[in-house]
């Protein structure tokens, strides 16, 4: 499907040059940020990744026992939680959770204390003044209010 096909797909229409404009807007923003890449970086990336993924053989790594135990505990805890809390009348996203956990397990060095903190991080408390400013700027909704009350 090319861009002109997309203009009429399912009866929807969109402003002329919409995708070109949005690409230009994205580009302008990036240029304002001052970030650059080497010339033709994106053109060469595909070949680089293809090469890397085909040359990568499966390597068995020694996992430090500390991380192996930590990962096992996390897996067990999450598994139990999923089992206990889940609605067993339908199969829900536990398979994806397991895929994600499997992904984490492939690189145990990835699971650090900070990672765990990140996932279970408490929101910073707001002082009253900041809270009022915040509520003035944002639309009030119960979900937001309940987090602070």
């Amino acid at each position, binding site marked *: 499907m090319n861009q002109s096909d997309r203009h009429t797909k399912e009866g929807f229409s969109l402003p002329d040059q919409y995708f070109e404009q949005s690409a230009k807007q994205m*580009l302008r923003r990036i240029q304002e940020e001052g970030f650059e890449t080497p010339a033709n970086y994106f053109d060469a990336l595909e070949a680089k990744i293809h090469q890397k*993924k085909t040359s990568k053989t499966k390597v068995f790594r020694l996992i430090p026992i500390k991380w192996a135990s930590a990962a096992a505990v996390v897996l067990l805890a999450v598994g139990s939680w999923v089992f206990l809390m889940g609605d067993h009348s339908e199969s829900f996203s536990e398979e994806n959770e397991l895929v994600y956990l499997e992904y984490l397990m492939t690189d145990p060095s990835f699971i650090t204390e900070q990672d765990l903190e990140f996932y279970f991080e408490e929101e910073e408390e707001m002082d009253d003044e*900041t809270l009022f400013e915040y509520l003035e700027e944002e639309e009030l909704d119960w979900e937001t209010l309940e987090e602070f009350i």
Partner: protein
Amino acid sequence: MTAASLNNKYDYFLSDIELIALITNRETANKGFGLLLNQYQERLYWHVRRIVLSHEDADDVLQNVFIKVFRYLPNFKGDSSLYTWLFRIATNEAIGLIKKRKPNINLPDDEIKEEVVAKLKSDPYFNGDDAMLHLKAAIASLPEKQMLVFNMKYFEGTKYNDMAEILETSVGALKASYHHAVKKIEMYIKEVQY
């Protein structure tokens, strides 16, 4: 960079289902993977670059992300969108890398900002002006979640709902994080100006 490259990258958009079908079929896997790269590589690259700041790091992270995606895509069940899944992996990989780079996370904010300013000034792939330099330094000194939310909202224009799925948190918490981030950045920019 790249001025012309963005325009050509979005000629083809395949649905999640189409991409997954191509990649999980042995005969079309490489073609499908190429299309997946074509469709997502730039958005993911800039998302990662804003977190890790240097091109070399962004390149490393992006390659790892796509290799992991290729390896795990056959198991992807589609409970979240491919976009969400890719951004989640990219975010985790990028955060993982900056943690490895910053063993001392208790560094005072001022030192983090000075470090970032020095790093960007010496980076051949950064040409931002002073204002952008200080903005990047202020962003880098934010707590992780605030940094992610600020980048995604301010630079990438990501909707709170999409962000909530990627970062697995509530819209309310994200709005609060963004608000905190803006206040801290404003305060730092004022300090730098006066």
